[in-house]
């Protein structure tokens, strides 16, 4: 029992060590531009955590990352690498936007769920292409999803700058053309903020904070994914395929079927990634619609070691880093890109450290078993 506790401790320790290690290496980067790492980290914490509204912004930042982390982790769990979350969420966001601006006159109680559903469907459709190619033609999903990301950039550009461009815009003086963006979504498609709900507990958030119901929805989704993975036959099949495809096949599980369903699920989750931004902050889609959530999701999933609840925490960590990055840029003039270096280092150190630790844990477990047997 004591050993079990020790092993559990090691498992939790791995991400912590990774974060510390990457912070140390980033310190060298910060030193190299003549700033003090201590001051930078101090500013990050002070700027992000000292005020309630800033904490709410962190949670708002974390919201899309919960979904993208979950999307990536579902892929990892079955042994596939969905680098295509990036493209899938853009397509999903567009589908949601389309349902949001083209349908009018529905009550919010129907319109909003419909818009969310469209987002999920959009992500699923975009995820269907690589998994179909993988199962039918053996195309490695990593390359195909990367290609589809690039294709989605161009496609989205075409859709919002050409086909569905908002022609009702007034010509902006001096620009000579209208902005490349979709029409505004109906108010019935927008997601309410959390302000009212939090107000019940005496927490007052300023208007410039966009924390909305997608955050609790993200937590709920994480719980559902956890239940699916650990308590349902399909979740078991998905994990079995991910850890030993041949044994799963021999046991009568069709890896192809699991791949397709699992990847579509991953795509559906990806389709939800952009909705928090779309349905609370933007209200339309344009060329500035946030990018890179898909790639951040990879880091989020890795740090959480694909544990759905861990993903909530690592998404919040990334939300904090993003907020902190704004802080050090405005207050200290340290480029926010420092944080993307920190994130890349975190991915690397987490994979290296967990690898080393897992090997170590495996040795511990083996020792224990033999002692009991002899």
């Amino acid at each position, binding site marked *: 029992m004591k050993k*079990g506790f020790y092993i559990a401790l090691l498992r939790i320790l791995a991400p912590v060590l990774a974060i510390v290690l990457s912070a140390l290496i980033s310190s060298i980067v910060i030193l190299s531009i003549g700033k003090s790492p201590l001051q930078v980290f101090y500013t990050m914490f002070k700027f992000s955590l000292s005020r309630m509204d800033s904490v709410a912004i962190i949670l708002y930042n974390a919201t899309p990352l919960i979904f993208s982390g979950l999307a990536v982790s579902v892929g990892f769990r079955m042994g596939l690498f969905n680098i295509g979350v990036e493209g899938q969420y853009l397509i999903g966001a567009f589908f949601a936007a389309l349902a949001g601006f083209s349908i009018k006159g529905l009550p919010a109680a129907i319109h909003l769920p419909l818009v969310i559903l469209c987002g999920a469907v959009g992500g699923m459709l975009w995820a269907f292409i690589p998994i179909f190619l993988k199962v039918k033609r053996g195309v490695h999903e990593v390359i195909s999803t990367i290609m589809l990301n690039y294709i989605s950039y161009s496609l989205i550009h075409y859709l919002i700058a050409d086909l569905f461009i908002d022609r009702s815009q007034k010509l902006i003086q001096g620009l000579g053309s209208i902005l490349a963006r979709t029409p505004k979504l109906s108010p019935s498609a927008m997601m309410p903020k959390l302000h009212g709900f939090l107000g019940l507990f005496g927490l007052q958030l300023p208007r410039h904070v966009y924390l909305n119901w997608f955050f609790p929805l993200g937590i709920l989704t994480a719980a559902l994914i956890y*239940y699916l993975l650990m*308590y*349902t*036959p399909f979740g*078991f*099949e998905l*994990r*079995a395929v991910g*850890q*030993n495809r*041949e*044994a*799963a*096949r*021999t*046991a*009568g*599980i*069709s890896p192809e079927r699991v791949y397709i369903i699992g990847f579509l699920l991953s795509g559906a989750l990806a389709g939800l990634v952009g909705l928090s931004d779309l349905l609370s902050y933007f209200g339309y889609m344009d060329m500035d619609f946030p990018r890179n959530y898909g790639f951040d999701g990879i880091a989020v999933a890795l740090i959480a070691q694909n544990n759905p609840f861990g993903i909530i925490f690592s998404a919040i960590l990334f939300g904090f880093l993003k907020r902190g990055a704004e802080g050090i840029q405005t207050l200290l003039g340290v480029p926010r890109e420092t944080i993307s270096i920190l994130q890349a280092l975190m991915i690397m150190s987490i994979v290296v450290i967990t690898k080393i630790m897992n090997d170590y844990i*495996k*040795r511990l*477990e*083996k*020792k*224990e*078993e*033999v*002692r*009991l*047997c*002899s």
Partner: protein
Amino acid sequence: MEKAVVLKGITKRFPGIVANDRIDLEVEKGEIHAIVGENGAGKSTLMKILAGIYQPDEGEIYIFGKREKINSPGRAIELKIGMVHQHFMLVDRFTVLENIILGAEKSSGIALDEKRCRKAVEELLALYNFSLNLDARVEEISVGQAQRVEILKVLYRGADILVLDEPTAVLAPQEVRELFNNLRRLKSEGKTIIFISHKLEEVLEIADRITVLRRGKVEGTAIPSQVTKEDLARMMVGKPVMMRFDKEPLDVGEVLLSIEDLVVKESSGRPLVNGVSLKIRGGEIYGIAGIEGNGQKELAEAIIGLRTASAGRIRICGRDIADLSIKEIRDLGVAFIPEDRHRQGLVLPMKVWENMMLGYHTKKDFLKGRSLNLKAIRGFTKNKVEEYGVRLSSIEQPIEGLSGGNQQKVILGRELSRGPKVIVASQPTRGLDVGAAEFVHKELLKMRKKGSAILFISADLEEVLSISDRVGVIYNGKITAEFRPEEVTPEDIGVYMLGGEKGAGEAK
């Protein structure tokens, strides 16, 4: 006489096991020294230490009288020690020549000097009278030829001490004879040969001296002329070898598994199973004897649906399975004990109880609504663990932490507890110690009594003969003969295993 190899007090521990326990060994120059022992006696570990793959935790190694540290395979080669591994260490897509010269290439500048390499190898071929096509790709040549490539590899490096790890395990009898001739020729050229095996007859035939290992320790050294097979067996096992089962005669039932003219082809179109027909009735164990790689694995995999038949028919309880999925075939009542536990039988990182439901996780008693009934699954696992005496610390433990025998018990518990009609057991005792193997046999005999039709595949002829009601010999994807075990001797069957013609020994 000069000692080629002297080991003093060699100890090697692996997590939880002492593979070599204070081993002392002396090998004289120019002798063929056999090392025998059961699976898991520590033979391979000892040889890997000599080859520089493992480092001993304690002890000293002397090569030609000088104390040496063999800390890498490269160092072993420098010391003129050459390993011929049981599982060939060949690059399949390279040519024979490339495989031989790899790592010891002759070059001019940075470029390979293929001509000089070829000349050197051809000289070796001539010296030892080996025949090999140097330009064939290794993936195209026979097992016996591949072994010759392995031997040439070490000779090309100027090895004086050759270590052969279970060299006959994969060979047909004629090939064994040829190998022995080659070894004698090598000996006459002054080479020292360490020959690892568990086949006593072979050892008695070829070796000058025999060292027996048991449970990681040296049991003793013998000279072939002074011992019998039984003496050696006793030293190896510690008790007289007994493989007699309480196998009561049974009235057999209906045909549960029937195979007609089955053909299974490789993706390249080469037939691996080439027209196998057989019928197994309930309460019957049908053994498949044969040298590995003659289509046994593919036959088993075709029955469970892992491979598709390109011709012929497989029927389970009369139902043609041609268009059924693996799951549907299993649902007909087929249990499968795969040859490769780790690859096909278990999901190693998963918990013991998770492995216990693998493939049966959609059975009603494991479900509650549409979710898994974890309580029921854990309960089932606990019962089986108790019933079979699986040694573990917790059923929450990843199954990779269990020993091979305990892992196999989990597979048996899973596969046999739902009253299967047909059981396909592919090498079910491979790599297990005597106790665990005995357990597997007992459980299968229990299933026989309960009326299952059992296909038992094993490379161990004695095992097949003692457990089966009928035995078919497979050679080149065909069942070349069928016997009742009491009608034949292992020697008779041996003829067929090596591809001998029907006729002489036919007993049907």
